[in-house]
């Protein structure tokens, strides 16, 4: 495999991990924190050790590490727009599990994000670099 093609593939795989771990991590956190009152330190500790919150934290740790790995070879100005697909993923999860309404405005927003992501994603993650 040519080095360019290898890097493109590696970048795509990591972008998908970053996007999904962020959206799913935030969702599990929100799900785990629903109907919880955190008035004291004990409440907080109990919340942290509940299964959904633990899952959310683990996914967000995965998000941080995979994003760091991605930034080790891809530019920040590439990573930011591409991983913004996470906003779309969160909207879809919200629609699915929390039965939120998707207004025409939101559909337009989703389309704009996807367009921006595709536009940037088709380019090189590190143009003119020595990788």
């Amino acid at each position, binding site marked *: 495999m040519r080095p360019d093609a290898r890097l493109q593939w590696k970048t795509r795989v990591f972008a998908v991990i970053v996007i999904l771990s962020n959206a799913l991590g935030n969702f599990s956190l929100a799900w785990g924190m629903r109907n919880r009152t955190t008035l004291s330190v004990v409440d907080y500790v109990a919340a942290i050790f509940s299964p959904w919150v633990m899952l959310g934290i683990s996914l967000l740790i995965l998000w*941080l590490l995979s*994003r*760091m*790995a991605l*930034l*080790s*070879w891809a*530019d*920040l*100005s*590439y*990573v*930011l*727009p591409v991983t*913004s697909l996470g*906003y*779309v993923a969160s*909207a879809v999860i919200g629609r699915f599990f929390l039965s939120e309404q998707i*207004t025409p*405005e*939101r559909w*337009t*927003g*989703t*389309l*704009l*994000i*996807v*367009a*921006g*992501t595709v*536009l*940037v994603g*088709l*380019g090189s993650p590190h*143009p*003119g670099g020595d*990788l």
Partner: protein
Amino acid sequence: MLLSVIVGSTVMGDLLQSLEMKRHGEIRDFHPRGLGKVLATLARKKYLILAIAFMAASFFAFMTLLEVADLSFAVPASAATLVFETILARLILKERVDSRRWVGACLVACGVALLAR
């Protein structure tokens, strides 16, 4: 006030994280032992620790903002950081931001703002 804390710490966190990872260079070894070595090296990088501290600050500031403001106000703020960070990536990290990336970043920022309404 809270908003400027969020924008400022997000921008600083991302910039420092990107800077330190660029210095480290491409991670190629994904076997557990290799990853452990990478993590041990990274855990000693000052900028990276600072970056994570900034990200934590921005996370808690965002949570606080959500208590006093609507999500539809809070999320467009994060869209603003996107354009801001692209400008700083060009200026400080000396990245080559071509027209494709400028247009992409603006499209995404508009999209995020719409999504939050």
